[in-house]
């Protein structure tokens, strides 16, 4: 089987651009799909060709599997890379592509289904020898069973929706009364969000680290791990800063948890790139959380330290090529950290922000990689995920990576929309972060320390002067204001 000559990228924004770049390097033609809101976007500009999608909502356009299959027929694409989000973990989509004679660049549908359900995947992980947290074997039937399980494993406990994700349908409980309430809230939230109200109970780990293993598996029986990533810095259950290696994982631990991830991938007949997510407690215990059957947002930190292009490997594996290297060929070089730039007001509860990006400037430099999908003049709307860029810094040590990333964020100029670049800089400068003392509650715990510092009077005066000199309000030649400046004013 040879590589496809043309691949459709069923995604948008920075990840579509990133996939297109690897395709171009592999001399494979790329097809972008886009909703009208993204017509002038960077993905459409960089792809060899582009096909418009129409949907009832902008997100709906990217979820329309029939339209995407039709776009393959129209453009002659032989394969589809789904990126992450949207259709990337949709087994029905993968099967529909296969039925249409189109290659899905991802794992087999059966493996996606097995890992898509939290209860089923936990059962499979346990059977494969991956450590799991003590808890109910199956969904609990009712409140009384939830309390019985909780009494047995000990409080605090976590109630989790089987179909859950993104923190929805997840509640902690410290005693039986709280468990009663948590069960009701978790199951009704899960039913409303996922149409599946099944809930299971497991031990709650306090101050856990989120640590995940990247695996690569080909169709010839080779399964490798590419080390771990730590993604403990999260807000609202969404990762904000990710790094590889984890400050707390040594070589022996890496081998041990890497091998459990390999065992699980083998047990479910996995191929392509996948990620086994685990939580780590203070005592050095690692427990299975879930397996993501797709490319991860934070894959660049693994690429930086291993030198392996994960998207390229996904394409080769889908085309039936064997991995051209073994576990002994995977080397870990230095330290890489990624910061996700979101259009949001981090100092106002991470409120999403919208507006027109009037100025866009990204820095370049040693060890720096910027994955972004925005162009100057672009509207940032509430229609899509608020992530607009990823800034990744690689250094010989964790300290060097932190310093390079801080400098890069300070040199990232995004004007017209509130973004979290300076907040990310403050997280990186925090002494607890520098010390590697991280856990998933880090941003809440250090909330006050992460607030912006007051400017000294001279710097503030410089900003005020710059604003006055830049504003047309002060210019007598522009006494009749431009229409935009007039918006929001009283009119006679």
């Amino acid at each position, binding site marked *: 089987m040879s590589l496809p000559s043309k691949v459709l990228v069923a995604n948008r924004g920075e990840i579509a651009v990133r996939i297109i770049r690897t395709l171009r390097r592999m001399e494979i033609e790329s097809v972008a799909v886009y909703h009208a809101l993204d017509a002038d976007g960077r993905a459409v500009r960089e792809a060899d060709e582009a096909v418009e999608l129409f949907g009832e909502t902008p997100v709906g356009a990217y979820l329309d599997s029939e339209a995407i299959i039709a776009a393959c027929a129209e453009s002659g694409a032989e394969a589809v890379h789904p990126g992450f989000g949207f259709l990337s973990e949709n087994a029905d989509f993968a099967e529909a592509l296969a039925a249409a004679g189109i290659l899905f660049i991802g794992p087999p549908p059966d493996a996606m289904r097995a890992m898509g359900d939290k209860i089923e995947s936990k059962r499979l992980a346990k059977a494969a020898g991956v450590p799991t947290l003590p808890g109910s074997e199956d969904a609990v039937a009712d409140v009384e069973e939830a309390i019985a399980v909780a009494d047995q494993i000990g409080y605090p406990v976590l109630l989790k929706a089987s179909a859950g994700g993104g923190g929805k349908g997840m509640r902690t409980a410290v005693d039986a009364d709280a468990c009663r309430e948590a069960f009701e809230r978790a199951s009704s939230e899960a039913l409303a969000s996922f149409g599946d109200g099944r809930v299971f109970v497991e031990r709650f780990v306090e101050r856990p680290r989120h640590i995940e293993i990247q695996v690569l598996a080909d169709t010839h029986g080779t399964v490798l791990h590419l080390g771990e990533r730590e993604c403990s810095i999260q807000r609202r259950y969404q990762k904000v800063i990710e790094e590889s290696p984890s400050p707390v994982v040594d070589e022996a631990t890496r081998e041990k948890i890497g091998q459990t991830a390999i065992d699980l991938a083998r047990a479910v007949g996995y191929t392509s790139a996948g990620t086994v997510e685990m939580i780590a407690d203070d005592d050095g215990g690692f427990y299975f959380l879930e397996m993501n059957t797709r490319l991860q947002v934070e894959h660049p930190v693994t690429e930086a330290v291993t030198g392996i292009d994960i998207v390229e490997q996904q394409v080769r594996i889908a085309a039936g090529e064997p991995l051209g290297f073994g576990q002994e060929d995977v080397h870990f070089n230095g330290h890489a950290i990624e910061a996700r730039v979101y259009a949001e007001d981090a100092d106002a509860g991470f409120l999403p922000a919208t507006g027109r990006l009037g100025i866009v400037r990204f820095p370049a430099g040693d060890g720096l990689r910027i994955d972004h999908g925005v162009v100057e003049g672009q509207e940032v709307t509430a229609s899509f995920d608020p992530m607009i860029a990823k800034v990744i810094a690689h250094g010989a040590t964790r300290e060097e990576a932190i310093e390079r990333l801080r400098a890069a964020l300070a040199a990232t100029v995004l004007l017209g929309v509130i973004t979290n670049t300076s907040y990310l800089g403050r997280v990186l400068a925090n002494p607890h972060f520098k010390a590697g003392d991280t856990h998933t509650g880090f941003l809440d715990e250090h909330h006050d320390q992460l607030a912006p510092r007051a400017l000294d009077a001279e710097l503030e*005066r410089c900003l005020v002067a710059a604003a006055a000199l830049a504003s047309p309000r002060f210019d007598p030649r522009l006494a009749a204001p431009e229409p935009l400046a007039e918006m929001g004013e009283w009119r006679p």
Partner: protein
Amino acid sequence: MSRLFEIGLDGDRSHAVEVARHGDSATLTIDGRNYHGSLRPAGDGYELTLEDRTERIWTYVSGDTVWLHGFGVCWAMSVIDPEKNLATAALSGDLASAPMPGTMINVGVEPGDAVAAGQTLVVIESMKMQSEIIAERDGVVDRVFVAVGETFDRGAPLVSLELIAEPEED
């Protein structure tokens, strides 16, 4: 000398500013004290000089908001005309619109309420700054478009007043 404007930093602290231009430099009066300054294109951005200090900055002006990148941080500065009180703005007599993206903090009226010109309709928060949206004319509230806690884009309708019926022609 231009009129005096208030410039707020990220909606917090406010400074009274006047500008007198001479060629490509200017005398800025900030909170009653004079400073010599200039803003000149440099590279892909600008060079700000204030007295003996020079800084590289980037700027993007959008209406009454001046976005600035300086000292490694992005700032949203609001330029407010104290006479016109731009922050308490309505787009027209019949419809109060959002002067900038934000969140609804308080809704003081409901459909059917009679309101007088100058009365506060709703309070919004943008960039941590709360602004009252006030009625431009006397009238009756027709609709409230955004509930407390909801976010909206710039220009989004917030409150409309019932149209005043034109006298019918015979």
